């Protein structure tokens, strides 16, 4: 943490986006997380992504639960909406928010504890609803806020700071999400913004539930030798399967991708994600292929990163429930509440 706020002075040639804002306009308060925390890098990547997507700050809803990770929304886009909910209950609160106003862009920031322990049930059901949101798990394999116990994502054999190794099987959010039917599944690393920023942009623009599992080392409790979520370990076993480039709707795809290696997928708003596959045979639109590939890589001890699965066909919660396009929050009260007479007519049908 820092004692002085980040000075307002900027580089005089700072670029501006379509709204005339600079990246600095998308900043939040100064982080009070430990210096060097991976979460802060993710915050920086988020700022860059929403800046580049020209998102008006007031059209953003930042949602979180409890934990180090869940402090993150305080550190980006101060001028937006936000809700800091009960531990593990961010998916439900976001569901409510989205049900009331589907115009906002929802970014939920959670951690391995908030999502895979106390919030596991909520996590499964928000996937089931295919809620239109970007769901980020800042995954460090440790309960940092309570001083370093193994979390549900700690790998077998990963050592705690004081020495003992973890024996319990981890829950892998990515394979879990594939199994549960999520429609956008990616993994990134806080130490690689070049890969991370397009993944976040894709996750924001994807219509439906987008899961981003981001390895985010805990410098204080899980960055030592023997840890499998340290900067050094992640870099050593880091494996880019697929790089994904996010292309906004208006832009042409400039074809400098290697033949056979590139594969564009169009999103609902006309923007595109171009996959650049390291493994030519990998098919990111096949759930079965993604699942088996992931299982093999876990066995090999590799940390697979990139956009692993995408499905643009399944509708989101509103499509599935057939709700109106207009956000409920913007429908006038008279229209939203049809009155006593209409209500009794409806009730008549059930008599």
């Amino acid at each position: 943490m820092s004692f002085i706020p980040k000075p307002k002075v900027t580089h005089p040639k700072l670029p501006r986006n379509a709204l005339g804002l600079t990246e600095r306009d998308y900043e939040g308060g100064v982080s009070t997380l430990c210096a060097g925390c991976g979460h802060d890098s993710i915050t920086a990547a988020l700022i860059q992504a929403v800046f580049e997507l020209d998102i008006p700050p007031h059209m953003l809803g930042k949602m979180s639960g409890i934990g180090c990770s869940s402090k993150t929304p305080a550190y980006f886009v101060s001028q937006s909406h936000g809700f800091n909910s009960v531990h593990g209950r961010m998916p439900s609160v976001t569901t409510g928010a989205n049900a009331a106003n589907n115009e906002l862009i929802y970014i939920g920031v959670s951690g391995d504890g908030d999502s895979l322990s106390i919030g596991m049930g909520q996590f499964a059901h928000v996937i089931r609803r295919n809620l239109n949101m970007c769901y980020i798990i800042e995954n460090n394999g440790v309960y940092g806020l309570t001083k370093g116990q193994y979390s549900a994502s700690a790998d077998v054999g990963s050592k705690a700071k004081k020495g003992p190794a973890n024996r319990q099987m981890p829950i892998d959010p990515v394979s879990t999400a594939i199994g549960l039917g999520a429609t956008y599944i990616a993994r990134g690393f806080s130490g690689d913004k070049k890969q991370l920023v397009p993944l976040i942009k894709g996750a924001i623009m994807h219509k439906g539930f987008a899961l981003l599992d981001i390895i985010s080392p805990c410098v204080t409790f899980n960055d030592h030798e023997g840890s499998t979520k340290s900067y050094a370990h992640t870099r050593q076993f880091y494996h880019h399967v697929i790089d994904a480039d996010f292309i906004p709707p208006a832009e042409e795809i400039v074809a400098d991708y290697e033949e056979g290696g590139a594969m564009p997928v169009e999103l609902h708003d006309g923007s595109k994600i171009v996959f650049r596959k390291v493994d030519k045979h990998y098919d990111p639109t096949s759930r079965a292929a993604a699942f088996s590939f992931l299982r093999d890589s876990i066995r090999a001890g590799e940390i697979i990163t990139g956009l692993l699965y995408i499905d643009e066909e399944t509708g989101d919660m509103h499509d599935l429930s057939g709700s109106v396009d207009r956000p409920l929050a913007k429908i006038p009260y008279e229209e939203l509440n049809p009155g006593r007479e209409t209500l009794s007519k409806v009730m008549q049908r059930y008599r």
Partner: protein
Amino acid sequence: MKPTDVSKPDYFHKVVDCQWACPAHTDVPEYIRLIAQGRFSDAYMLNRESNVFPGILGRVCDRPCEPACRRGRVEDKPVAICRLKRVAADHRDDIRERLPRPPARTNGKKIALIGAGCASLTVANDLLPLGYEVTIFEALKDTGGLMRTNIPRFRLPPKVLDEEIGYILDMGAELKLNHRIDSLKALLDSGEFDAVFVGTGAPRGKELDLPGRQEADANVHIGIDWLESVAFEHIERIGEKVLIIGVGNTAMDCCRTSLRLGANDVKVMARKPRGFFKASDWELEDAEEENVEIVVNHSPKAFVLEDGKLVGMTFEVMEYKVDERGRIDRGTVVGETTLPCDDVILAIGQENAFPWIERDIGIEFNEWDCPVVDETTMMCTREGVFFGGDSAFGPKNIIWAVAHGHEAAISIHKYVSGEDLRDRLPHGMNLSTTKMGMHEWSYSNNYDPSERRLMPHVDLRERFKNIDIEVELGFTADQAIQEVERCLNCDIQTVFEAKLCIECDACIDICPVDCLTITANGPEDELRGRLSAPAENLEQALYVSEELPQTQRVMVKDEDLCVHCGLCAERCPTGAWDMQKSRLLIPYAADEAEPERRRARAG
């Protein structure tokens, strides 16, 4: 790129742009910090070590430091470095106890200094404490050279001059006023002196040979001579309408002096348009504040006389073209005009003149009739004769003269001691951490967004009553407190230790001015283009680290816009970044004389 070698003092010295730009390498950030702490005497003494005349320079320095100031790159205006120097001088206590004292017995070596200006006085300042017997010959009736004769009293009061020159003379210099040296040969032949230093300035104002010049002589004045006559009160009046020819700093002094001697319509005639003037922006501002009109694109053609008396001057009206690189052409004449006037002052430059140096005594002169002087040793082609200030390389300014004086003093000491003049002590650099604890630094690291303070001036109605009224009042305490906080502490260096870095990006994310990047190494011009923000100032070197342990990439810092807020070091979990104070060690004659002293300073 190769990793930056920070063991060479020049690398970090260059980051302190003000100090690098100052010919005498004044430790600007440190003296500003001392002022911030209310340690005015300490700030004064630190200044004096390098620039010798803080009170004088705090008023009239040409301030090469300010255009260089990094603050001017992140916002409009640089720190008011020069006027803060005056704050140190204005608020200092009696510092005479702290001045170096000459030893009880001299070393018996005699040095002649010709001219009692800033260059000679600097040599005296450096040599007297070493035991030299110094004699200063001055042609005029008072000391100070151009500082006294060419800078009007309303900018530089005589009291300030007397005090700071007094510090030096009181160390035991023998001063011979009204003693013009007419023959260098005679002085050298006398064998009285072990070495001779020439600090006679560039005393000849340029002449403008146009029709009517001779006939109008009574009302046409050479700027620097006229200012000198005003300084010594030989001239006390001037006509109501005055034209100043030329638009350099001397012209600014001439026009403002005229206003105090009875003129009420003063025009400064410039041949070229704005942006091509020689005068410093701030001197132009001060003149225009006094309602001096600056007339551009007028090239003088002839003096107009009626009944043998000057009544006006004819000018050709010019038009210029400026190309895309900002260069101006020679111009074309598009008209002609005559302006009425009572007096004309010529301020179109000055030249060196050495009628008193014989050409057959082994001193080689170049094509401009100036002595050939070595830029390192300040010695001319005759051994034992040294030059400094304007007399060495033509008109520059006071701070250059001081810098020359320091170098010449080292050379004179070495020459007299029979040492090799070129075997000089190099610059040194000390680095020490400013870390006091968690997120605590021994300097004020927060960025203060305040704008530059404006110098308060004496009211326009008041100031013309007397030529002795100093126009600038000096910063008030409140102004000084605000202005010191604008300094970006460029001497607090960001020092990087590659082997500690875990590449967490924390420093990059927090940097307010995007000056850090972790990336693959590459050739410099290519690397400059792909940093967090392109590094476009080619004058400022990139700080490139050794390979980082985890990915073999490199940390690159573009020093150009760094505000030295220390947040990179605060956010660094491993202490790979540290904020370290750099202190440049500049050797003076005393260090050459006693290497032990230098070691003591290096601490």
